[in-house]
């Protein structure tokens, strides 16, 4: 009987060792954005997603309801209180599927917020870079980025 028990113990140890061989990596921790007051994805919806194969980056454009509605209308006019957030990650190979790439370290978070100022609408743009989300001080090139982001056609989500 004792022998049987020790055999059982050895077997379960062996099984435990086997399952330990393949640690289960549940989250994509690399791609996680640090929590920060500088951006907020809560309640935002997906407008579109795209990749750049030469740069090896993956991006997702989020927006609040107003932003999504404007984007579907082609952003012909920019209304107040719209929030667009474009998150760009480096890509990595998907460990779970040969044939897929998934997001890796975050490269940038670009936030566009529109506010009404008198009769017109003010468009505010901020670019946060790297894992530490450093605010880009250099403001040159902002209008190109705004045009690029507002120019993105939404993904068909029927």
């Amino acid at each position, binding site marked *: 009987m004792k022998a049987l028990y020790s055999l059982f113990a050895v077997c379960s140890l062996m099984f435990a060792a086997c*399952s330990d061989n*393949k640690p*289960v*990596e*549940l*989250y*994509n*921790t690399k*791609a*996680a*954005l640090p*929590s920060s007051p500088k951006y907020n*994805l809560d309640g935002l*919806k*997906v407008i*579109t*997603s*795209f*990749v*750049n*194969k*030469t*740069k090896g980056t*993956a991006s*997702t454009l989020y927006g609040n309801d107003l932003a999504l509605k404007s984007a*579907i209308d082609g952003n012909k006019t920019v209304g107040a209180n719209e929030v667009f957030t474009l998150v760009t990650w480096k*890509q990595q190979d*998907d460990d*779970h*599927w*040969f*044939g*897929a*790439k*998934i*997001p890796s370290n975050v490269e940038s978070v670009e936030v566009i917020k529109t506010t009404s100022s008198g009769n017109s609408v003010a468009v505010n743009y901020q670019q946060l870079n790297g894992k530490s989300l450093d605010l880009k001080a250099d403001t040159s090139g902002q209008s190109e980025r705004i045009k690029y982001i507002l120019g993105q*056609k939404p*993904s*068909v*989500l*029927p």
Partner: protein
Amino acid sequence: MAMKTNRKPMYQRKAFLIILILFAGFLCIQFVRPDVPNPPVTGDLEAPADVKAIIQRACYDCHSNNTNLRWYDKIVPIYWGVASHIKQGRADLNFSEWNKLAPADQKGKLWESVNQIIAGAMPLPGYTAVHTGAKVSAADLAVLKNYLASMVHSKPADTAVINAADRQYQYWQKNKTAVSKLPTAANGISYIPDYKNWQPISTTERFDNNTLRVIFGNDIAVKAIKENKIHPWPNGAIFAKVAWAQLQDKDGTTHTGEFKQVEYMIKDDKKYASTYGWGWARFKTPKMVPYGGSNVMFTTECMNCHKPMAAEDFVFTQPIKH
């Protein structure tokens, strides 16, 4: 005085009798043999010689009409297991009837095959333990991977593709794609229109089949991610995975083109106990045509490909937690 006798003690005779009966039984069941015929080859796998040699050696016993049973495979009860593997293996993937698959499906099955090998799921480990010659070595795997990688091409979209995507987009933009009655798959799962308001938990670029994908999670799934309770996923968690054709522009950016399908996995370990605890459904095109038609067995395909992820509750995606 005790008499000398040649007769063995009673218990030894009994043991002998039992062994004899067992052996007779063993011989008898040898005649209970499910038939494993080799049906004709309708159109064999076409691939470079080195690639094909590996697949023939490692997979053909169960996934072709050229099964080569060794003498030890033919001993019942081992034979019963072998026969059932061959029956199921052939039904799910048959390299001898390769011509019956559309070219895109052939490609898909090859990528799936290599992924099953990488995951250690194929060839079945119990089989390679005996048929050691069928093992796929690291060098073999490299040959297979290189072959698949050589089939990947990415080029800017041509006008036909762009126009098709544009047409679909305009249709959707004018809200003409909304369906009045929710389509339902053969297993009773209906299309869930609200998925687009859920949070994205990851995205993938699939270069094996030229698609882009976004994986959405419902509130229960997102809450479970936040609270680190995804092993296993809680009942009520739902994923929606959307796939679009890739649309590459001249600047090298690849956008989402035509919407192809949305797929769901609904967690309920009781209701869906027979399908790994998940309810599976796929709806194709903006018309949301249920995949599998009226055949509920379509879920076998989903389950087979997700099976190597059993340790992760059958989920491939590693959610991005912010």
